């Protein structure tokens, strides 16, 4: 189970990233944030976001048009 879950379904660029950034603030260090999104562009964007910010993209998957990301707060 992730420490927190962010439902960003139905939101378009750049809202999933902006909301994830905000949500991460409330995640403890080394804690995890689960993000659910329907924006197909969010896959590339969360990869880039994590590379730039130094947070870890632990896993991502897709099921029935819903993308699920698991971020570990490492920065």
């Amino acid at each position: 189970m992730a420490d927190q879950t962010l439902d960003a379904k139905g939101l378009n660029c750049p809202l999933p990233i902006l909301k994830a950034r905000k949500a991460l603030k409330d995640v403890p260090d080394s804690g995890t944030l689960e993000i659910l999104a329907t924006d197909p562009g969010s896959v590339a964007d969360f990869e880039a976001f994590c590379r730039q910010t130094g947070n870890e993209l632990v896993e991502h998957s897709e099921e029935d048009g819903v993308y699920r990301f698991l971020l570990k707060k490492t920065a």
Partner: protein
Amino acid sequence: MSAEEKSMSIIVTKGSLDWAYPPFILATTAAAMGLPVTMFFTFYGLPLLLKDLNLQLTAAGNPAMKMPMMGGHMGLPNLLTAIPGIDAACSKMMKNLMNKKGVAPIEDLRELAVEAEVRLIACQMTMDLFEYSLDDMIEGPELGGAATYIEVATQSDINLFI
């Protein structure tokens, strides 16, 4: 939060509904990625700092603007763009479409930019030219001119003109 700190500046020169998006999307995203961001609002970009926004777009001279409609895409021939009320109608259509697609209103992105401590500079010359005062603007912008921007630009890794 950022691994290696880069910074970005954007000169914002256009204030129509469509042109307002790129600078605010990029500024808020860069800030979310840990970059210090400065936006310099000049000429028609300056009204994007006004308290009340009622952004419009123009159909005239905008041949690439095609709205999804009835399974296809429809543009507006230039001849029809002179019809009174057409810009208001197109703007309304665009806003409805954005709302349907989960695109944030500009007001929201602007608020997020302020929250993320994006530095907002209002061009003093444009303020004077179009007779605006800081009282007309949201809380947050500072006044500055070309030299203020150049100093920011020399210290930024990414400088955009939009």
